[in-house]
């Protein structure tokens, strides 16, 4: 047989790809260029190609061609987006003050489902309820906070350090080793010694993962899940250790009735009168039902600028249950329990 040479295209690899893309198009429209392909290809790729309306990029079986088509699609979309943006900017410049207002992007916090238990500050019944609840003794100045911090049995490394650092952050806090004692027996002894709070840090595999906060005379017990614990030496650009001054407390975003109760619980941990000399502040910031704890030292450089140094440990809490009465997980009555399947079903609904 005679060997006939097949003419090889002299262009590079990229153009080969364009050939292929051409061929895909030619599959759809058999009447298109089979002869002109190589020369006219560049123009053809830019020209508007008409596809049947039910065509989607995912129907192409060849991975490389499919990838190419998808990239092109994305580029087209991006182009349209940029054009729109430019148009808007031009309009704004032209109209100046009369330009339509900027659109606010949707966030989950924006789209939050309205909670009917949100506290209205003018509601008499709710103010009475709060004024006479278990924390009234603290808020009326009758008692001063005295906190006992302990852990679950046989704590290891990180948990012990975490407890020590917590004790420096909360004034009038004492750390005691657990040594296998039952909580229900510790509680009457604490009450006898005028403690107002009991904090139990639960440990799992050498890392703190839970926190039980029990208000003592007869108060509610809150159980939290602890995550993202950063001890002092793991913080970057931190300041020196906190001093003995009482810090100020910031409680952010506790809007619902349950949020109010938890906020008051945190507030009652610290003494009523903060010492502004110390310039220390503890923040409990609630966002999407997660409570972020931060401890800073601040300094006002001038009227508008503040410098901040992060001091103490940093951790995140999520409320699991709030129980009426002191710690009694079996027979206590729960005021609120996290039921994941019911409450976490909607992404835009929050409880705190």
């Amino acid at each position, binding site marked *: 047989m005679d060997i006939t040479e097949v003419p090889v295209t002299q262009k590079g690899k990229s153009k080969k790809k364009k050939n292929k893309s051409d061929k895909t198009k030619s599959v759809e429209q058999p009447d298109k260029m089979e002869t002109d392909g190589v020369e006219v290809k560049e123009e053809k790729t830019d020209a508007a190609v008409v596809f049947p309306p039910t065509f989607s990029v995912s129907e192409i079986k060849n991975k490389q061609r499919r990838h190419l088509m998808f990239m092109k699609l994305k580029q087209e979309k991006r182009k349209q987006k940029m054009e729109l943006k430019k148009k808007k900017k031009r309009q704004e410049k032209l109209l100046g003050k009369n330009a339509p207002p900027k659109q606010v992007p949707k966030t989950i916090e924006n789209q939050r489902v309205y909670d*009917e*238990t949100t506290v209205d500050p003018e*509601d008499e*019944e*709710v103010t*009475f*309820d709060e004024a*006479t609840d278990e924390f009234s003794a603290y808020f009326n100045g009758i008692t001063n906070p005295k906190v006992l911090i302990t852990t679950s049995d046989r704590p290891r490394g990180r948990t012990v350090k975490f407890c020590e650092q917590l004790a420096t952050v909360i004034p009038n806090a004492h750390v005691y080793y657990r040594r296998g004692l039952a909580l229900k027996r510790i509680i009457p002894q604490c009450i006898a010694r005028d403690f107002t709070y009991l904090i139990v840090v639960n440990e799992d595999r050498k890392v703190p993962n839970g926190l039980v906060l029990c208000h003592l005379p007869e108060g509610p017990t809150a159980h939290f899940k602890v995550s993202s614990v950063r001890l002092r030496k793991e913080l970057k650009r931190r300041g020196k250790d906190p001093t003995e001054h009482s810090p100020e407390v910031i409680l952010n975003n506790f809007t619902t*009735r349950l949020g109010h109760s938890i906020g008051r619980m945190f507030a009652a941990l610290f003494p009523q009168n903060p010492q502004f000399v110390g310039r220390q502040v503890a923040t409990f910031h609630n966002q999407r039902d997660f409570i972020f704890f931060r401890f800073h030292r601040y300094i006002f450089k001038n009227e508008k600028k503040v410098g901040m140094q992060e001091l103490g440990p940093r951790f995140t809490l999520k409320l699991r249950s709030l129980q*009426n009465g002191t710690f009694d997980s*079996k*027979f*206590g*009555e*729960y*005021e*609120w*329990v996290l*039921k994941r399947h*019911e*409450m976490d079903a909607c992404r835009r609904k929050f*409880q705190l």
Partner: protein
Amino acid sequence: MGESSRPCTVWLGSETGILKGVSVSRRQAFNFCDSSQLSRQHEVRTLCWADAAESELLVAAVDGTVKTFSVEKGAFTDMRSCGDSAEGCFVGLAVLDSGATLVTCAESGLLRVWRDESGEPATEIRVGSDVARMRQNPEHRHKVATGGKDNCLKVWDLENPEKPVFTAKNLRNDWLNLRQPHWVKDMAFIPGSDKVVTCTGHHQVHVYDPSTPQRRPVLETTFGEYPLTALSLPAAGGSVVVGNTHGQIAVLDLRKGLVRGCFKGLSGGVRSLQCHASQPLVASCGLDRFLRIHSLEDRRVQHKVYLKSRLNCLLLASRQLEEAGESLGDAEQEVKDEEDDVDEVWDAMEQVEEREENLKRKTSEEEEDSPKRKASGDENPKRKTEEEGENPKRKALGEENSMSETSGEGDNPEKKTSVDEQQQKNKRKRKKAQA
């Protein structure tokens, strides 16, 4: 004041001392408070109807006072002191002799019968210590049941107060031969028999039968892992609704003791449950400050009301929960009555000459078929009924229709043609199919 209290069908007592009335049809909640100042001393512990007509409520507070609230006037009318707070909070309230006698039970175990506004109780029984609940038998009003922590169920007859009519025995010792702890939290009398259902703090549900010599429970089931705090019997019978401290409410079957289903939505402990006397609804209230009404058939939340304080007790009126439901029922009846009138109206009206094409097509057929159709005219309404209950009614209607037809024919033989009758029958069929 009366206008806000009269439409209320659900009454609740809260920890802040406020009596709340909820009108479900109007979706409104009203607060009724005795004094201008709220106080935790007035925390409402139990509610009870003062009479069978349900025009007055008895509200028992922590400080030992029992107040009467009139639904008609919308205000507290009377107050009497029935013990003090040193004896413990009220756990049960009952009424005998249509309001003349009051029965109260305190946590310390003092069951007292008060007569005629006197300061001293007429009868006093010691029921044991740590009583959790006292309930009255709705059929035999002089019988009450009490129970508490390590305090077995006892049924007392108030006419012979020396000894209880029935004392339950504790369960058998467990497999280690240790005494089983016993903690009755709530109980209810099953109507139609002597039996009593109780729910315990150890997540058990017991059924006792005083008519048998067996003093131990006849039926025993468990639900969940948390103490059961409230119990209620639905009107349909054969089942019981229980709620626990975690906010789980379930309906249990009393024949075998299995869980039939759970009611979802509560996030806090249940303090009180009540099933409606006639409708398949159950109302629940608890520490999460919400009143929820679930339907017993599909176990879905029908209504949810936020009431800003923790709720202690709940009372349902026996009349229809939603008054809109009543008016709907009336409207349905009116529609049925109208149908008879409508047919007569159609018969009396002149024909409308709209569908001439149909007329032309059908005339030839109808002249032949019309006698057959007249005969089957009676049967059509009967065939169209779906519910058997309405059959007699519909048959009556059908007879009336035929009557009206014949009378119509008798009156206006000239106006009517077989065509018109066919048209009217079509219209009637369409109306009935729609209705």
